[in-house]
């Protein structure tokens, strides 16, 4: 297992203190892997490769097993993400009320699709299953802000706002 780590010369430079602290916290808990990965992601904004190997070492599991978990769940990210995460709700209620149109508008403007990030690391677009604000469909979230009852025009206004904020 350690050989594989060493042959990977192009490793990212990353401060592992944060990851170590997260692992310390959950080390003795049964089923620690997911809370550890969630903690690491909260700290770094994504799960950087060196932290995977660190977690593998300390939790005594294979890195492949960790990647299995990381790629299974939609909420883990292996790449750095944008400053603004735009979550476009694709739930049934939003779909019926025109979520596809909202998604297209945003993608056309930014030139990126689902799970992609703009080159300037400003925006990440995600199509999510259901935000649970179905009463105000169609809905998007930009970071923690929710915008409901959207039309193409309103969507453009929201996007203008964040573009200006930069």
């Amino acid at each position, binding site marked *: 297992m350690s050989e594989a780590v060493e042959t990977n010369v192009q490793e990212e430079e990353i401060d592992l203190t944060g990851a170590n602290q997260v692992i310390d916290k959950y080390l003795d808990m*049964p089923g620690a892997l997911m809370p550890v990965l969630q903690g690491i992601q909260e700290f770094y904004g994504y799960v950087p490769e060196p932290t995977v190997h660190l977690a593998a070492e300390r939790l005594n599991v294979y890195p492949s097993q960790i990647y*299995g978990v990381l790629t*299974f769940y939609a*909420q883990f990210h292996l790449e750095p993400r944008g400053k603004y995460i735009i979550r476009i709700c694709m739930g049934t209620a939003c779909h019926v009320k025109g979520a596809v149109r909202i998604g297209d*508008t945003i993608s056309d403007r930014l030139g990126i699709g689902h799970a992609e990030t703009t080159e300037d690391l400003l925006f990440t677009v995600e199509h999510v*299953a*259901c935000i649970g604000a179905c009463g*105000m469909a169609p809905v998007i979230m930009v970071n923690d802000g929710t915008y409901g009852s959207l039309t*193409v025009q309103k969507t453009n206004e929201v996007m203008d706002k964040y573009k200006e904020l930069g």
Partner: protein
Amino acid sequence: MAETAENVQVLICTGTGGLASGAQGVVEAFEAEFERQGVAAKIGSHCDVKKTGCRGLCANDVLVDVILPGQDAVTYDFVTPELVPQIVEQHMLGNEPVPKKVAGPYYDKFLEKQQRIIFSRCGIIDAESMDDFLANQGFTGIKKAVTMKPEDVIEEVKRSGLRGRGGGGFPTGVKWSFCKATPGDKKYLICNADEGDPGAFMDRSVLEGDPYGVIEGMMIAAYAIGCGFGYVYCRAEYPLAIKRLQMAIDTCYEKGILGKDCMGLGFDFDMRIKAGAGAFVCGEETALMASIEGERGMSRPRPPFPAVRGLWTYPTNINNVETFANVAYIFYHGADWFNSIGTEGTKGTKIFALTGKVKHTGLVEVPAGTTMKEVIYDVCGGIHNNRKFKAVQAGGPSGGCLPAEALDAEVDYDSLIKAGAMMGSGGLVVMDETTCMVDIARFFLNFTRVESCGKCIPCRIGLKIMLEILERITEGEGQEGDIEMLEDMAIDIKKSSLCGLGQTAPNPVLSTIRYFRNEYEAHIHEKECPSHACKPLLHYRVIEEKCKKCGLCPKVCPVDCISWEKGKVAYIDRDKCTECTSCYDACRFMAIE
């Protein structure tokens, strides 16, 4: 219960829906206004601003109840921070509710046919306050339960007739007795709060509005079955629910309600929240347990059932949030009371999340036996924009669509299955004549295909092939024999899949074919989408005879490609049109095709 309050109370909906509509601003505005006007001194009593859970009528958020001492609650809807000074000035100081801002008669109508049991605390109490919970029967259920023998507690739940609210409808008491009967000292209890069905948010609202109630239900189950440890598996998309539940758990530990010798009642129970990470299949019990163990959330063959061999191989009992909430109320009022509500096969109430093209979207709680028609038309005010009702989708990706003819179906596990849908977790998405049923089938199949864990072949590959056929049909490339092929595959996938996801995933396709075969045929034979929802089949032109010359469509067009003058039929310039369908959705007269 709150009418007799001595303090002036302001109840503000701060569920996810309320907060998204700006409830935090309203809360702050009230607090600032009380301060500024010195209201407490002027009326001689204290003013409480309570941040409650969901009030139900999410479409009209932010909802605010103002309760003056000795008076009934007055409900305001669409409250904005700007309106707050007026409410304080006129209503609280002048004792004169602000006219026109008070919720109209539709609010009474919305409540009339409902029976709010699980929601009796949601929207009334401050969700984060244990004192409020205690003042409203809180923890009296568990205190009553421990006076009984664990076997009798299970017997009481059996007698109540409660069936699992997660969708399957398995009798809760029977489930508990299985786990109880399995030998072993170490048993786990799990509350399934992985409410993944798109269009369903009742579990979220219960957790946000009455977290202690769920904890109490779990404590009763833990005592009855003999579980020492409980998990609440909550989806990570519900940060507010996780936050409020965590606060409630922390408070319970501080006060000795959870942990060793709970409340001095003589049993131990620890619990913890486990946050999911975005996988629909984790709502399935075996996948959920794999996920708690830190693995990929892939389902496991049953038997052995969790009651025999579950989490970390120990006997485990899993129930849904709403089920646990029901348990608490059964012990407040007794099994006979619960048994007297509802129909022969389904007891108690059921919470539904109504969304889509219905006037009053939101959460409703109705006794079992209410018809779908009553829920949609009487409670929720009928169809938005007065369009024609086409179908209601019940049960999410596992359920089916009911057409107008089937609307007399009762809210009841068995009658819904007979009608071709299912109770599911309780999401109802209402569709009008502009919703294409083939597209809806495609939508759900796309969802389940993406969320399939990939373990068994019928689900992983079968759904993909069905989806390809549906995509072809919605793009106008449908072929003769496609419908029959879909039906064949659907039946095979249902029969041979490992877990509930695959076994139910073809349901939306089967039920839409059953009731809306003509729409499939129109797509395939005439290459037309009768609802004008499938983009590749749209023409983007104004039908002259139907156009009422109202001038609405040019207003909604984001690229200004619709020309219109007063008294003239609108015209769409196809060269500039981006085919976004905004005009089509906005038109009240179906004059764009």
